[in-house]
């Protein structure tokens, strides 16, 4: 017998416990996901409105004088990498990190400088030794609000204006549905006017502007950036919980499978033990009968 009965039973119990944990994590992730989805829904009207106002303003006063629209020769690139703080969520972080790594490699090949701003522990830990990490924000995704996006915005906007770097990209996980997230790369700075000018803007004609249109535009562009950042944060957070939920569901069903096969093994071993014992007894009595 390869394993004793007790060994198998112990193993089964261990797997049973693991299953309990993964199932609990699955449920926790499911409820967090629900919250995250509600927040995403609640944020939508705000984001849409900001974009609408920006659209209308931009189509009226397309000043290229705004420093955040300044296209410079992109030599120094900054990458805002958003990952989760914790693991156990399948390929969620790996995918976005891989994409970011590919992006960095490509840009470096072109002879450009890349530095990273990391949100989330996983991304920071991965690039800690490999790349130049300017700053990081960890343990923030558990509970965050707009102020995190505002803080990030205030970190990157002045640096862009003072020409510390020329281009800002963000790498995050796009939330498609509960079971699927897609790593996504987006250029944030400089903003290209095509991003937000469409023909819809005409409806705002004849407005009174307070202060002037240019000043309003100058104020709303940073706001748009923060909205984009917040959106990326929200999607990553929802995606993280979705990915974890799926991963834990798989883990739970794997545990079940394992328990099943272990139980089978246990039963077989027990039966073998009983048979062996029986054979002993039968053999014993036969021997006794013969000798008498």
């Amino acid at each position: 017998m390869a394993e004793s009965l007790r060994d198998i039973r112990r193993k089964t119990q261990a797997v049973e416990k693991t299953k309990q944990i993964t199932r609990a994590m699955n449920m926790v992730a499911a409820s967090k996901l629900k919250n995250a989805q509600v927040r995403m829904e609640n944020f939508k009207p705000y984001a849409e409105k900001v974009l609408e106002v920006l659209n209308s303003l931009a189509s009226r006063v397309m000043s290229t004088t705004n420093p955040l629209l300044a296209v410079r020769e992109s030599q120094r690139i900054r990458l805002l990498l958003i990952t989760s703080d914790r693991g156990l969520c399948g390929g969620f972080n790996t995918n976005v990190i891989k994409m970011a790594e590919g992006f960095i490699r490509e840009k470096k090949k072109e002879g450009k400088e890349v530095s990273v701003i990391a949100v989330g522990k996983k991304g920071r830990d991965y690039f800690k030794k490999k790349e130049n990490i300017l700053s990081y924000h960890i343990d923030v995704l558990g509970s965050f609000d707009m102020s995190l996006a505002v803080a990030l915005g205030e970190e990157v906007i002045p640096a862009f204006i003072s020409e510390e770097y020329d281009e800002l990209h963000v790498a995050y996980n796009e939330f498609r549905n509960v079971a699927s997230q897609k790593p996504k790369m987006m250029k944030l700075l400089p903003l290209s006017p095509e991003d937000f000018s469409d023909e819809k803007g005409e409806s705002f004609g004849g407005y009174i502007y307070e202060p002037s249109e240019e000043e309003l535009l100058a104020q709303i562009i940073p706001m748009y950036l923060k909205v984009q950042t917040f959106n990326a944060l929200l999607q990553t957070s929802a995606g993280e919980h979705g990915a974890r939920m799926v991963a834990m569901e798989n883990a739970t069903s794997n545990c079940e499978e394992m328990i099943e096969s272990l139980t089978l093994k246990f039963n077989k071993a027990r039966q073998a033990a009983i048979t062996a014992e029986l054979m002993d007894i039968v053999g014993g009595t036969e021997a006794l009968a013969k000798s008498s």
Partner: protein
Amino acid sequence: MADELLLEIVTPEKMAFSDKVEEVTIPGVEGAFGVLIGHAPLLSAVQCGELDHTKNNKKTYYAIGDGYAEVTGEKVTVLVESCERSDMIDTEKMRRETEELESELAKLSKDDKDYEKVSASLNKAKVRLKVAEKA
């Protein structure tokens, strides 16, 4: 009943308010302004301050953060970073917070890099305290 206009206050967290009201006073960057139905279309930046609206001769006060307000003839949309109704703010807590920030600000010199940040938060706390006291 007077003619009513639709007021919507939108924050990143939620739709904070959406209902018909008679009059709105908004803290614009160039001074507070009142809006009645039929106001000329207007787009204004809004600064952290006190917003109130009147319905059935009753005023309700809100402390709001920075943002924008868009006015059309029958609708006002206010987009702000935060919005709290006066009775949702804890007056005692705000008073303490205001005092703490004041003493913190007193320690900093004007060239300190945190000076602007602290004075901005103090300003916000003051607005909230003022609004809270109206509850």
